[in-house]
């Protein structure tokens, strides 16, 4: 791992697709970048997705090379498993305090062999598979993780030393503690991504208690060839799913849970997942219950038509409640809009809630940039400077400013990097040049 320097031109918060792109675009212009990621691997949400819409390309096949390029770029220093404690304005730049979390593994020595995980006698719900799969108490975050370094979870450690005994490089270090890292940077790009609304937000949809009502990101893992099941099975008993329902706007456009806005990607991922379910098993019925289908991007309308041609049922309806039957099938009480509001009970064996997109990180005063009421970072001039936060020198990209799809997040990351480069050119680089010439800026 590269040693952390005391000074960088740019700090990028978040190692998802937007953060990686912003880092690459800023570093590509000759600036030194520190990329900070709170998880043990970069890749964000995208590396866990099965396919991307509307091309149905393999998501990790696109994301993984970008991860490798980011990690190996000579001007990018990657600092994973690290949290931001404080970013404070100081002169033209910022003083940054980071906390590097202990992995209990010496990063430089770990060869990613997984022998520690195989030796571990404890199983834990795997975060990468949204709990549907298992991992050891010590584990490599996932097969495509970068860095490919193990992390020990003290919550699932029984202190028997099995991992240390199995490690061929003697890299398990039980003495590690959280480590404070202080750096000075000239500009900040915030690309902290997304989370989805909690499964228990809507009591009428089971409140997270029905095993066969799923999170859409968990369904991405279920559909992935390297996912927890390898097939589209229902979590209650491993039955092959034969009738799958999607409930749209199950956490968006809903003032009752504080998410009044449209999450922008749910219609498209529901159509995409529906197609992929058909590709797993053509006979499986897929029904999407929606208020309206929003297919606004390049090639999206054609993708919607394709989904219908592949047999996806798209039903304009509002789902009032979901109840679980004795055999753990699910009955959806729906109001069928195109049938004059007729109320019907529809039975399925698996249901996916198209949950709302919410901010992946809340600054809570740690960054001197403001957020809007919805928690997303405020943009100073929405129509003309969409990558500029409310503060000079702090730029924003991807879902940190609001829900968006992958192409839009990448475009915005490029814009943020360009804005940051121009800012650095006006302030930081000029100051460095003057200091270098013996003239205080």
């Amino acid at each position, binding site marked *: 791992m590269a040693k952390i320097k005391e000074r960088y031109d740019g700090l990028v918060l978040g190692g998802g697709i937007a953060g990686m792109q912003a880092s690459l675009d800023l570093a590509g212009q000759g600036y030194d970048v520190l990329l900070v990621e709170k998880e043990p691997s970069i890749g964000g949400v995208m590396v866990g997705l099965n396919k991307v819409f509307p091309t149905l390309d393999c998501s990790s096949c696109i994301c993984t090379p970008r991860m490798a390029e980011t990690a190996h770029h000579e001007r990018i220093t990657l600092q994973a498993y690290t949290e931001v404690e404080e970013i404070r304005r100081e002169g033209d730049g910022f003083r940054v305090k980071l906390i590097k979390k202990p992995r*209990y593994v*010496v990063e*430089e*020595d770990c060869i990613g062999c997984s022998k520690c995980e*195989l030796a571990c*006698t*404890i*199983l834990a719900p795997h975060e990468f598979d949204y709990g*549907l*799969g*298992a991992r050891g108490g010590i584990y490599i975050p996932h097969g495509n993780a970068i860095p490919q370094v193990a992390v020990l979870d*003290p919550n699932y*450690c*029984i*202190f028997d*030393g099995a991992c*240390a005994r199995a490690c061929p*490089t*003697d*890299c*398990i*270090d*039980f*003495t590690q503690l959280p480590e404070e890292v202080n750096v000075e940077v000239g500009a900040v790009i915030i690309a902290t991504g997304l989370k989805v609304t909690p499964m228990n937000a809507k009591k009428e949809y089971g409140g997270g208690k029905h*095993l066969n009502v799923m999170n859409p990101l968990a369904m991405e893992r279920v559909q992935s060839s390297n996912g*927890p*099941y*390898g*097939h589209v*099975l229902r*979590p*209650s*008993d*491993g*039955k*092959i799913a*034969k009738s799958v329902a999607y409930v749209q706007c199950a956490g968006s456009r809903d003032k009752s849970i504080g998410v009044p806005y449209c999450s922008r990607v749910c219609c498209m991922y529901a159509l995409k997942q529906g197609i992929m379910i058909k590709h797993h098993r053509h006979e499986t019925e897929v029904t999407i219950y929606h208020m309206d289908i929003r297919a606004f991007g390049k090639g999206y309308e054609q993708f919607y038509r394709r989904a219908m041609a592949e047999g996806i049922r798209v039903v304009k309806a509002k789902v009032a409640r979901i109840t679980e039957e004795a055999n753990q099938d699910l009955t959806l009480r729906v109001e069928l809009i195109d049938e004059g509001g007729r109320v019907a009970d529809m039975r399925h064996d698996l249901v996916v809630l198209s949950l709302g997109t919410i901010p992946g990180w809340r600054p809570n005063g740690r960054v001197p940039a403001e957020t809007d009421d919805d928690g997303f970072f405020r943009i100073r001039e929405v129509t003309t400077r969409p990558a500029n936060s409310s503060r000079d020198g702090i730029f924003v990209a991807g879902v940190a400013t609001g829900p968006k799809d992958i192409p839009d997040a990448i475009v915005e990351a490029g814009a943020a990097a360009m804005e940051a480069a121009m800012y650095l050119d006006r302030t930081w680089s000029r100051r460095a040049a003057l200091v270098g010439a013996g003239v205080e800026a």
Partner: protein
Amino acid sequence: MSEAKRNWREDVKVFRERMGGLTEEKKAMSKDQRDTTKAIQGALKGGPRTVPEISAETKIPSHKVLWYIMAMKRFGKVAEAGQAGDYFRYELKEASS
């Protein structure tokens, strides 16, 4: 590689104390995992089974059986062995049987 050899046996004792010791909750979790794995392996010694069949034989809830089967599959102890109706069958791999 770091030069000094780590004394992990001593380090893990200190780590254990720092993390609040081996709690009753963790002991129970560890025992339950061992017992569940053993029961599922026992059922599979009778030949390939579906999740509901293992659940009926072991009295372990079917969602829990599925989770353990997928964990055992991931760690190379179990493999798929065809289908029975709407369910896949699973069998022990030779090395772990």
